[in-house]
């Protein structure tokens, strides 16, 4: 705890203004009467403390991180270095367009690149993350229906396997979320969809490849059914890495999509963010795109605001979203170029299918063994759980001991004892082979010494934590005297 190094009167002297000026003109009653209780440490103490903390993390730069649905691929360092050039960092968000042409050129070109890879008619970059992109997308669906006087539509359909953000975003836009079951082959249950569609349907939110890691083969039929009912189709771009340059959401019939640039376009995940969740739309939804956007007249770039786009759903952040993340994604796209886009989906899919095949050969069960894996796949460990009493969480924790971040566990909920594994295109074959060996080893351990596996991890900075206590005896901040 940084506060343990704190001593009254100590501080990193080089960092604050050396003069101590009096506060003139502010009434005393408005002033703080005591020093805010922040840590009082030297610069070196701070550097050591935070360096040591960093060493308690798994990360892409240090470990294989096959966290399904999160696309934890290598984040090229150039993206950070070039997005941090002095001219980029010092540009004030409200600087005039005359002093923003370089920055705006990057955004404009990124809008174009994203339009091309998704097959959408127009793109707005402003949503700050996937969930905010979802919010924007559903708000546009609502704006579209409202503008047509079609106000009775009250439901957004979501597959039962959908990311939790989907139903939560629908509710934030004032809709009810209605779940559609997934069939035993991993595709959506078309009959259930048909019976759910009706005049109350505002739209459907789908991920394709879906969250169970397979391509929704009847997507065209689904699109036709939803459109015939007067609803619109929303594409959750969490799995765009699987299809980049192969098939485009616009061509599948989607009306609105969001992309997760921190997944597909390799911007860093930063211990929880920031991300960026640009939205793309078909022509009929273009007027509703969130602002600001960038326009180009052949000579100059300019902002599109409320004035240009009176029907926009509006602004989602004080300025233009996570600009620095957008710049990183732009740099990544320029490094890859058009030929690199195909490779992303090709090698992420190759890696996933190879890893799945090897794991199946090693005695693990795929949740959908008859299906081709996309860029990720689901294992179900229900056999191991039943026979050995060692469940998915135990496997996940034991993986940590072997220096591998656990895949996503217990999502989607409909597959019992599941592990959602996404190796990404940037992992080498030998790292995938090593993962298979580790999984085999853990399986053997589960047979010979199950208690040891159930107690894992054993080599991390802490052992399994008491989550119940964390929630019951809430301790959310250090207080003086702790």
């Amino acid at each position: 705890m940084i506060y343990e190094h704190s001593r009254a009167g100590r501080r990193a002297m080089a960092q604050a203004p050396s003069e101590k000026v009096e506060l003139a003109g502010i009434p005393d009653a408005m002033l703080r009467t005591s020093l805010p209780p922040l840590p009082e440490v030297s610069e070196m103490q701070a550097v050591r403390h935070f360096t040591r903390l960093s060493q308690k993390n798994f990360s892409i730069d240090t470990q294989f991180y096959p966290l399904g649905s999160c696309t934890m691929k290598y984040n090229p360092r150039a993206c950070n270095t070039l997005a941090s050039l002095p001219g980029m960092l010092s540009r004030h968000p409200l600087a005039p367009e005359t002093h923003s042409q370089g920055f705006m050129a990057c955004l404009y070109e990124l809008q174009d690149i994203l339009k091309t890879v998704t097959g959408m008619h127009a793109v707005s970059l402003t949503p700050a993350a996937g969930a905010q992109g979802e919010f924007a997308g559903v708000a546009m669906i609502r704006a579209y229906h409202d503008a047509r006087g079609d106000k009775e539509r009250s439901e957004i359909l979501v597959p039962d396997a959908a990311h939790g953000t989907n139903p939560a975003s629908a509710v934030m836009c004032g809709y009810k979320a209605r779940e559609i079951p997934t069939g035993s082959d991993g595709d959506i249950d078309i009959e259930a969809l048909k019976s759910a569609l009706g005049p109350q349907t505002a739209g459907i939110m789908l991920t394709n490849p879906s969250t169970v890691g397979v391509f929704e083969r009847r997507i065209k039929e689904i699109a036709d059914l939803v459109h015939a009912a007067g609803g619109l189709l929303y594409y959750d771009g969490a799995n765009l890495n699987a299809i980049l340059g192969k098939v485009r959401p616009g061509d599948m019939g989607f009306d609105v999509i969001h992309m997760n640039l921190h997944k597909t376009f390799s911007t860093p995940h930063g211990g929880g963010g920031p991300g960026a969740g640009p939205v793309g739309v078909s022509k009929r939804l273009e007027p509703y795109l969130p602002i600001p956007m960038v326009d180009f007249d052949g000579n100059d770039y300019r902002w599109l605001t409320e004035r240009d786009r009176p029907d926009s759903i509006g602004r989602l952040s004080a300025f233009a979203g996570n600009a620095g993340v957008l710049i990183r994604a732009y740099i990544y796209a320029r490094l890859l170029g058009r030929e690199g886009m195909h490779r992303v989906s090709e090698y992420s899919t190759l890696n996933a299918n190879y890893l799945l095949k090897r794991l199946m050969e090693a005695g693990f069960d795929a949740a959908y063994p008859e299906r081709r894996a996309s860029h990720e796949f689901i294992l179900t460990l229900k056999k191991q759980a039943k026979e050995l009493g060692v469940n998915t969480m135990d496997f996940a924790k034991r993986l940590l001991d072997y220096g591998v971040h656990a895949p996503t566990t217990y999502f989607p909920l409909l597959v019992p004892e599941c592990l959602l594994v996404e190796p990404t295109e940037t992992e080498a074959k030998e790292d995938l082979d090593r993962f298979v060996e580790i999984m085999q080893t853990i399986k053997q351990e589960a047979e010979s010494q199950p208690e040891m596996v159930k107690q894992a991890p054993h080599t991390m900075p802490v052992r399994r934590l008491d989550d119940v206590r964390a929630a019951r005896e809430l301790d959310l901040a250090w207080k003086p005297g702790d």
Partner: protein
Amino acid sequence: MPFIPHTENDIREMLATIGVDQIDALFDEIPSELRCGELDAIPPGMPEMEVSRLMQKRARTDGQPLCFIGAGAYDHHIPAAVWELTTRGEFYTAYTPYQAEASQGTLQLLYEYQSMMTALTGMDVSNASLYDGASALAEAVLMAVRGNRKSKSKRILMPRSLHPSYRRVVHTIVRNQQIELVEIGYDSDIGSIDRTELEHYSGEDFAALVIPQPNFFGVLEAVDELTDWAHENGMLAIAVVNPTTMAILKPAGEWGGLGADICCGEGQPLGAPVASGGPYFGFLCSTDKLVRQMPGRIIGKTVDLDGKTGYALTLQAREQHIRRSKATSNICTNQGLMVTAATIHMTLMGGEGLQRVAAVSHANTSKLTQALTSLPGVETVFKGAVFHEQVLRLPIEVTKALRALAAHNVLGGFDLSDDYPELGDAVLVCATELRNEDDIENYRGKLERVIQSQVQTPCQLKPDW
């Protein structure tokens, strides 16, 4: 292949294992009529060297003008160690700490962040971040509507002295939930919330009153009276604060008799560069009572099997990945890396350092105000005490004046004529601790010449001096 390690031999072996003869066969479940062609509109890939040249050119294009704009994004000194540490791969390339045992670095750091934010704001609890200040206010509004036990109202009192973009963002985010934002004007003499207008709503049913400190004009609001007024009328008090001011001004948790119920704002002044508006982070703090209504990640301290201290995501039953359509918010990815920077920033500045930054910024804005109002026809618009921004009225058309200044590499402030046309030719100026006396003199001298040239030849936009 950039960032793809596969050799020809690897590919052959992997395809053989899978049992297909080419990579494209792996896409055989995609209906062929849907497959797309070449992405010709995207330029071909470039090596890092060339992309570097391109980006250097773009960055140079925008120059590094002398900037006196604040308006929600403030240029402060950031210790070199902040981003040196923040961009360590172990912070930069980790994700949401779902596997607590392998994420104690991020989790402990977030707990320390929560501790520092509550220390600064005087509130009981903090979450682990939201997207930015404006969207944090939108979440605060939703939280107040859910959490106000005395009122079922979905109406919120929202002052016009609040940042115009914040008002727009809140409108975008809450409008589909039938929440009504009722605007209160500002006192045209002082520049703070119009108390007479506010009194009209006394006794009416609202979920919350939003109280900015300082407000968009830089003016300090009478936060004690406003907080008490809100509580007397059964409303929650939502504080929207600049975190730098919390080092010198009364913290939100101590406003009035009971303190603000929710305190949110833009975290950018704590270690994030202005950088075109993002990524920044929104912070959100509240009283203990409201913690279960909070959106976003919250980190709790607990123990492991051996009784050793550890940190974990907690109260997850509020969140979308557990509660789905009944979650407090749809937020998933937040602004973790920015919070990492902020935590290191607050540590290096300490309470004393932040106080000095705040005090010097306040003093520099006073100096700037003095220098500019020494010019004939330039005057302050409001009488209220300010923090580090000030509204000035110019004797010439403000839009043209700012354009002329920009042509000479001075960004003279935020043009208020669009959002507050009633103020006339008004500009919002800001001088943080980074603007020294030479900078202020540079601005004064150039504004003097712009005024002279505009008065003499009103149409000339780029005087040739």
